[in-house]
């Protein structure tokens, strides 16, 4: 091998290394997609509900201001996220989770609370690693704490809007994008297990 060939070979190796380093997030996201599929193939889990608060005579509800998922060391402020019907986009920040104002507030009666966030280190990069049964805790502006447990995971496409018409028991749905080019939407559904 001549010196010139060695240089070309080295450049090729460097390009591969740089590509792997730059695409690490997307590649792990792609693998997480496969992980989601594995989780989704399991039946949805159902958890015992705390007697203390979930179905009380009194409605407990509040504006979500903080989200934590202890198992993944996720601790994020939550702000309102708004849909712009003119251009079909949602407001999105790079360091906070957004509560979709078109969905139910965290409450102990019914409806889904939908919170979404970027697939970035600062936000939901580690979300796809959650396991069935992991807890998510929402704190509201009136100091209520809603505790949920992950019951199912679903990867879908951006046009799947079924969650916006959900009318069942109270659940929390978290979303981040997955796929090599972030073309999929991973939805993590948590069942309400307690309110304090």
């Amino acid at each position, binding site marked *: 091998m001549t010196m010139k*060939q060695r240089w*070309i*070979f080295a450049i090729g*190796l460097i390009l591969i290394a740089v590509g792997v380093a730059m695409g690490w997030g997307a590649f792990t996201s792609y693998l997480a997609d496969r992980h989601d599929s594995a989780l989704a193939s399991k039946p949805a889990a159902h958890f015992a509900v705390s007697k203390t608060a979930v179905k009380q005579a009194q409605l407990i509800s509040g504006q979500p201001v903080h989200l934590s998922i202890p198992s993944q060391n996720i601790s994020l402020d939550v702000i309102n996220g708004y*849909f712009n019907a003119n251009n079909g986009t949602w407001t*999105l920040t790079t360091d906070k989770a957004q509560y979709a104002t078109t969905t*139910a507030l965290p409450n102990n009666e019914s409806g889904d609370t939908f919170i979404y966030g970027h697939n970035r280190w600062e936000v939901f990069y580690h979300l796809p690693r959650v396991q069935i049964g992991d807890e998510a805790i929402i704190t509201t502006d009136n100091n209520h704490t809603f505790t949920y447990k992950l019951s199912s995971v679903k990867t879908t496409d951006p046009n799947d809007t079924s969650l916006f018409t959900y*009318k069942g028991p109270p659940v929390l749905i978290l979303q981040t*994008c997955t796929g*090599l080019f972030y073309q999929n939407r991973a939805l993590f559904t948590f069942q309400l297990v307690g309110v304090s």
Partner: protein
Amino acid sequence: MYDGGGVVLGASTTAAGVLVLPNTGGHMWLTVVAVTSIAVGAVIVLSTAARLVAKRLNKA
């Protein structure tokens, strides 16, 4: 704040028909650059290796 079915809603509601799920992806351009970089690098490495092997076979 509440719809007809008693579901607690947030500040505003929008007709479900026009909604899409939020685009919460990471850096798309980074992925494109990464995939291109790996592809070009792989072509260079493989073609260089193939040329080397062919040269050695010719010598033998």
